[in-house]
């Protein structure tokens, strides 16, 4: 008791600082996920939700079923595709955009900052409507633009391979802004004096970019990489609003698979099991990130 009191008086400041946040996260994230974990070993559906006596435990059945489900396996492959193609593109493009925007301070640069950011702030429902039209093979702007260069019309959302890329393009457009602004804030934090010193030492522009700017963007890059990675593993909204997973499940992501089973078909147990598989993938990816960047997280 004495010990605890001593600990408390010593550390109460940080504890009080994190207490409200931690409490909310425990109540609204950790406890629900534990509930979901329990659910994943049951056959709960809507009838079970209405009356708990309708629920029965099924052990690992849901998990076994999952890995026999060709749609789920396909969704794993698709998700991997989204991550491998999408994540590097987001990071490279948003960093380049930030560097470009940080280049000047004139009115033009300020205006374009808003423009680059606009997609991120647009409501997904609106995005779906607008892009649905852009991609329409008949009335869409993209095919119209291709026709200027005599390129034949594409089936942006109907062709199995192209559909995945179309969704990635749309997601890139939408998610660049947020990351760009994080890079931009980090760039603002690099003291001018570093560059001045380097210039005096005779470093050229490229050297300054690769030996000062990029390394000093370390923590921003780390942050963006982790959040982007997690975001793309949970890739969901774009296929939901654009293709519903079609054609032939070629754009089905894991998160969409979970949503379909949980909310369209009310197989909560199955969906919960699916989301734990997804959860494990995310944890694995994050741990790898942390290991890789361990050395310069805290500097």
């Amino acid at each position, binding site marked *: 008791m004495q010990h605890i009191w001593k600990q408390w008086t010593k550390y109460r400041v940080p504890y009080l600082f994190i207490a*409200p946040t931690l409490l909310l996260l425990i109540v609204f994230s950790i406890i629900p996920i534990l509930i979901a974990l329990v659910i994943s070993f049951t056959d709960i*559906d*809507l009838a079970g939700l209405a009356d708990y006596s309708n629920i029965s435990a099924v052990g690992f059945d849901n998990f076994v079923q999952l890995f026999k489900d060709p749609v789920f396996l396909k969704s794993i492959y698709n998700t991997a595709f989204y991550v491998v193609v999408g994540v590097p593109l987001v990071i490279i493009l948003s960093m380049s955009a930030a560097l470009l925007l940080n280049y000047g301070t004139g009115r033009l640069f300020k205006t374009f900052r808003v423009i680059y950011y606009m997609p991120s702030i647009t409501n997904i429902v609106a995005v779906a409507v607008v892009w649905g039209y852009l991609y329409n093979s008949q009335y869409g702007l993209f095919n119209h633009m291709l026709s200027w260069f005599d390129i034949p019309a594409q089936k942006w959302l109907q062709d199995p391979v192209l559909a995945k890329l179309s969704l990635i393009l749309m997601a890139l457009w939408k998610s660049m802004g947020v990351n760009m602004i994080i890079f931009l804030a980090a760039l603002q934090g690099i003291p001018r004096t570093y560059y001045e010193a380097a210039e005096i030492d005779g470093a050229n522009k490229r050297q300054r970019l690769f030996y000062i700017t990029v390394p000093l963007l370390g923590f921003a890059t780390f942050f963006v990489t982790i959040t982007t990675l997690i975001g793309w593993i949970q890739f969901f909204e774009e296929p939901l609003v654009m293709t519903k997973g079609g054609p032939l499940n070629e754009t089905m992501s894991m998160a969409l698979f979970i949503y379909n089973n949980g909310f369209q*078909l009310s*197989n909560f147990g199955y969906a919960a099991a699916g989301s734990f598989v997804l959860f494990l993938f995310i944890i694995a990816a994050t741990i790898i990130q942390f290991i890789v960047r361990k050395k310069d997280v805290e500097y």
Partner: protein
Amino acid sequence: MKRKSLLLALTVLLMFSVALVGCSGGSKETADGEKVLKVWAMGGEGQKLPELVKQYEQQNPGVKIDVQAIPWGNAHDKLMTAVASKSGPDVIQMGTSWIPEFANANALLDLTSYMEKHPNLKEENFFDGAVQTMKHDGKVVGIPWYVETRVLYYRTDLLAEAGYPEGPKTWDDLKDASKKLTARGEGKYGITIDGRDQITTALFGWQNGSDLINDQREPLFNQPEYVESIEYLKSFWDEGLVPQGLDLDLTAAFKDGTIPMFISGPWMIGTVKEKAPEIDGKWATVVMPTKKTNTSSIGGSNLSVFSHTKMADEAVKFISYMSEKETQLKWYEMANTLPSVKEAWNDEKLKEPLVASFGKQLEHSRPAPFIKEWETIAQAIIASFEQITVGDADVKTELDALNEKAKGILSK
């Protein structure tokens, strides 16, 4: 220093109080002792309904109808949470395809005992197809509010050129007309068939005498009747009579003649009129072409009483009002949805030819299989049909697989 930590503690305390304060739930009575009946209705219906119920409120002083509009896309989520928390509305609009699932979860009150007192709710008032959606497990769980069915829309001018001025009457006619219309030239089609609509394949199965799922809960997807209907549909893809990928805007394609026929519900009447006024008088609706029958689907919405209501009597009384012929006709004018009450169809307003075909079709209509697994099976059907038409899978092999899958779903 002490004061500072006190401040911090206060902040934490504030958080708790924020979490705990707040009046919970809506009270069932307003300040002047009026009863408030809570009604959930979807999308546009929910937004128009308050206008309709004004009259009811005048006739029934002391009762207030509180309508909450819920977006269609999220209605299922919202209903699920209501079931989970056992708190929700008193009266609820139920898409007919959801009824088995929610009835199975005991979320809908059995209305059998109220039928005597409210003759408006009796089965003989409604279309046969709609009556099949009222009952689940021998209980009456929903009263048809409005209905919809699918008919054939066609361009009278173009079909006349193809030799079918009154529209195709049989499957053979439909095929022949589609071929002739496709032969008009590059980029022209005969018809569009929406394979992603779960009811499409069912329609053709029924018309060929298949039952989809029989009374013993056995799927019939690899039986000759069903297989034949899918082969018939597949031929439209094989011969290029339907556009690949559904990227054409239906109304626009209908207007410029690219797609001179399509199968759809009553909502398209308004859409075509509004977006393609140029072709007024050049299009019509007609009942589905016949093979063994010309069965179409029946859907729409029922009104149900949520099982956790405290005002069941009031709720049933309200539903009874909604089933009156006059209310139904008024609602038809306001919301453009088709009356479920047969008698309403004798009214002049529903004699207009475009609408009258729907009345005729409703006589030959049946609901989608009324089991809670249907939604899951329907998704499997859509996937298989896509494999067959787009993925070029072998019909019999794919349907055998589908049948096995459906068996698995039904045996759970």
